[in-house]
């Protein structure tokens, strides 16, 4: 059996090996962990809040879970997607520095203007080109490529997280919250007209004011989120 000390050392080695040269991936992965923890904290805050009635919890907890799924999915899809594009552009040398162009040109990897494509040959900038697989990668290219690639990945990851956290997620969340709010109001109206024996999907004692108050004081786990 693994001792706690061995597990801890294994954890440190894992972090070093996986994120030591991949700052962009680290930002995406810790971002997702942050969103998951923030969602868990939010659900916990509703579930263990004495001021919220049992009936209201039945409505609010699934809403929080739905909210969390939307947030996490949109964050991961957009951020990792844009980071992947950045990484692909750098690895295929579609986006490169002049120093890298000089090396690739010297080795005949660049398709010059007017030059005819040789069938079956993969050129720099092609989908299947991978600069890290070149024979002279370790000796000539890595020192110029790695800092540039890391920078591109961090910038791409940042762009993705700005778009997902500040644009897509609020828009989707607002649509979702508005839909839920309308459902609550529709149920309140329905409750007024239906007979007592009908089963209510939403709590009958939640008024518009109470709903707004709940929304305004509801716990926020902002610092966990990226």
């Amino acid at each position, binding site marked *: 059996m693994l001792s706690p000390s061995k597990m801890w050392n294994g954890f440190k080695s894992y972090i070093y090996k996986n994120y030591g040269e991949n700052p962009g991936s680290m930002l995406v992965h810790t971002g997702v962990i942050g969103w998951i923890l923030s969602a868990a904290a939010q659900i916990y805050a509703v579930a263990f809040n004495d001021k919220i009635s049992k009936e209201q919890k039945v409505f609010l907890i699934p809403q929080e879970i739905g909210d969390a799924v939307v947030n996490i999915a949109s964050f991961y899809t957009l951020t990792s997607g844009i980071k992947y594009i950045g990484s692909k552009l750098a690895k295929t040398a579609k986006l490169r520095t002049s120093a890298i162009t000089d090396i690739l040109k010297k080795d005949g990897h660049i398709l010059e203007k007017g030059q005819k494509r040789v069938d079956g040959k993969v050129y720099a900038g092609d989908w299947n080109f991978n600069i890290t697989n070149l024979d002279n990668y370790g000796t000539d290219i890595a020192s110029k490529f790695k800092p540039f690639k890391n920078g591109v990945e961090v910038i791409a990851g940042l762009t993705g997280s700005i778009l997902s956290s500040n644009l897509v997620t609020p828009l989707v969340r607002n649509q979702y919250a508005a839909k839920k709010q309308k459902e609550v109001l529709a149920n309140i109206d329905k409750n007024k007209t239906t007979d007592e024996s009908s089963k209510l999907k939403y709590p009958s004692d939640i008024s518009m004011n109470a709903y707004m108050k709940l929304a305004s004081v509801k716990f*926020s786990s902002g610092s966990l989120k990226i």
Partner: protein
Amino acid sequence: MAAVNFNIVKNVYNRLPSIQVSKDKVIDNVAYIGKKWSSPHQRAILGLTAIVMQPYIDWKNKNVDEKTRKVSVARTCAKIIAGTLTGVALRAGFIKGIAAMSKTAAEIPANAKPFTKKIKQCLTPKNLDPANKDALEQYRNAMGTILSLAAMVFTNFLIDAPLTKFLTNKFIGLQKKGEDK
């Protein structure tokens, strides 16, 4: 069908012109961001962009009435300010703390006491390549960020929640003052 679509994507990609970055200043800045920027910078940038974008999105949300929108804007601003302040401070603090406890043998003075040595190396990874300083720096950033996230589970209740509530009420008060004028 999927394979055909993927071939189209590949062909389009291959035909796109390559982009060459020639300005040294731009190349240096990109490399600097990759090397030095980490989660505190990410959190700060997201906070700044959020305060510009999110309240506007909330205010333009015509699906809800004006009263709800006002509360929503106040709460969003409060949430962003509280979340950014604690998020940046904790991430930066933890990364600094981890850096102090993940030294390489060369970074510790030769005359340091065994206990000091142990403390200063308690978070140093066993598979460390002492020659690769960048990897160690990124490890410190990653470890600091992960441990700060664990700490934030608690500080969210202790700092974020009351600060958000306090700021929301302040902003709602300011809105009311503005309306009364």
